């Protein structure tokens, strides 16, 4: 170098300035001395909750040392997985990666599985043998299933009778069974009682399967055996079914024999009314009762009901200090378990954690839930709600706000909402993973 050496150049402006001039700062993987001293947050789980929290922690405070542990290389989203069953999307379209978290937001994404947590020493143990120390831990492990809730239905049975309530190979299995079933066959869907992940998911699934069947196997039927007495957006769904798929979908509430108690996997038969009523399907989809993700339970964060009680402002566990539980695993007041609420909870939690590190009061949270469902490719419906912290410390829906799409809306409204449903998917995945 004729005029100036790199060493002199660095001396002139300082190492950080030189790096900045060459565009190398922002996402460095080797921690600087300053970064080592920065508070450490470990996020367990790379779904909507975990990914959003990791991103927004770094947005709120780019000096934080944020590590996200996720066992998979990417996240296959539950939102959109019913659209795959309807033939509107493929699996690739609902698969998100962590490139932006790593490259754009400076999150240290570790592909590994958490084996245990020591809350006393504040250490996370990984299956690779590595350990991660934290100042604050965020748990976003999603749901796991209560395999003992329905006689005959365990994890092995789900390889024959899919739940497809975690998107991925289960979605592909259910789709294959739908493709293989004969025209004139019966699809049985068995949703659980509340609380469970994505309350409008089962009727949207029935809608998307109906769309597939109407197009490909129009003599077929769908039977929903529900463990509930009512379901989300019920009137809107039922009106739409009458309009789009007349006579194809039958819904049976719990009190009329909808609650199943037993399954015979080999014959694809489900039993309700204490075994008095049997239904045999060509395809059976059982969505079992759920609880918080296993790692949250084993870390002592769950209550007897299997969900994790938290301070609803900061989402810090009320059972174990310095651990925040977000997303579907948390008991979040009136908030439903949805990708949208997981995204919002993650942001409120990030704001709370950053405030705690700064020694200032965490901001009052404000949450939104927006849930679109596609009944057909050009027929969308929605539910919306705003949630704020009540004086009792519980998140409550704001009275007079939110609600479902108007029942008497013109068809153009449904077309618009179908467009927004698909826009919502693009936006929320970009906000959480992009």
């Amino acid at each position: 170098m004729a005029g100036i050496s790199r060493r002199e150049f660095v001396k002139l402006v300082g190492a950080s300035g030189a790096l900045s001039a060459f565009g190398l700062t922002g996402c460095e993987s080797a921690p600087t001395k300053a970064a080592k001293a920065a508070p450490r947050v470990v996020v367990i789980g790379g779904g909507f909750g975990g990914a959003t929290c990791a991103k927004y922690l770094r947005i709120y405070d780019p000096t934080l040392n944020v590590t996200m542990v996720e066992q998979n290389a990417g996240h296959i989203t539950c939102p959109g997985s019913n659209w795959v069953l309807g033939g509107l999307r493929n699996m690739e379209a609902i698969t998100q990666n962590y490139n932006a978290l790593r490259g754009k937001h400076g999150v240290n994404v570790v592909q590994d599985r958490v084996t245990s947590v020591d809350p006393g020493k504040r250490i996370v143990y990984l299956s690779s043998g590595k350990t991660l120390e934290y100042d604050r831990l965020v748990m976003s492990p999603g749901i796991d299933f209560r395999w003992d809730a329905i006689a005959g239905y365990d994890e092995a049975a789900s390889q024959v009778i899919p739940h497809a309530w975690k998107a991925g190979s289960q979605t592909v299995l259910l789709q294959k069974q739908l493709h293989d079933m004969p025209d004139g066959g019966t699809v049985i869907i068995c949703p659980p009682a509340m609380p469970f992940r994505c309350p409008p998911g089962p009727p949207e699934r029935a809608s998307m399967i109906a769309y597939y069947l109407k197009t490909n196997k129009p003599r077929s039927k769908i039977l929903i055996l529900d463990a509930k007495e009512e379901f989300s957006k019920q009137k809107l769904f039922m009106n739409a079914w009458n309009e789009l798929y007349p006579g194809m979908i039958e819904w049976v509430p719990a009190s009329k024999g909808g609650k199943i108690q037993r399954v015979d996997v080999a014959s694809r038969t489900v039993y309700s009314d204490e075994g008095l009523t049997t239904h045999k399907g060509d395809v059976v989809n059982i969505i079992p009762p759920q609880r918080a993700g296993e790692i949250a339970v084993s870390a002592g964060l769950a209550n007897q009901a299997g969900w994790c009680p938290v301070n609803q402002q900061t989402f810090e566990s009320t059972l174990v200090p310095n651990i925040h539980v977000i997303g579907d695993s948390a008991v979040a007041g009136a908030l439903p378990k949805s990708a949208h609420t997981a995204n919002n909870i993650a942001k409120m939690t990030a704001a709370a954690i950053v405030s705690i590190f700064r020694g200032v009061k965490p901001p009052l949270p404000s949450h939104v839930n927006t849930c679109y469902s596609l009944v057909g490719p050009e027929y969308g419906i929605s539910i919306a709600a705003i949630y704020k912290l009540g004086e009792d410390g519980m998140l409550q829906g704001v009275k007079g706000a939110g609600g479902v799409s108007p029942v008497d809306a013109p068809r153009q409204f449904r077309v618009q909402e179908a467009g927004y449903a698909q826009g919502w998917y693009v936006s929320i995945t970009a906000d959480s993973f992009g």
Partner: protein
Amino acid sequence: MAITWKHEKVVVAALMGAVGLLSTAAQAQDSQTQVISRGEVIATTCYTCHGTYGASPSSIPKINDLSTERMISTLQGFRSGQRASTIMSRHVSGYSDEEIVEVATYIGNLQKRGK
């Protein structure tokens, strides 16, 4: 050692980087005690549909080009029903006038902050 013209450009760029860094460092220092505003908290809930920093990547409208005044009048229009919407009127009815001003002020100033 002579610094050539070519290198001057690099040095200026580097100094600008250094100045930028100083300014970032100053901001970072400020941010260490900064309280996250109510407007920002509410704004992050808008981002879920309208894109991070309001820069929507989808068919849902972007909001990062709205002035504070325009955003206030738009939101109030949704709430009163004067402005047609599919879902926004259901959302906006959950916020007080004060909250609308706070979130509109935050989002209306995003571009000034380089977001």
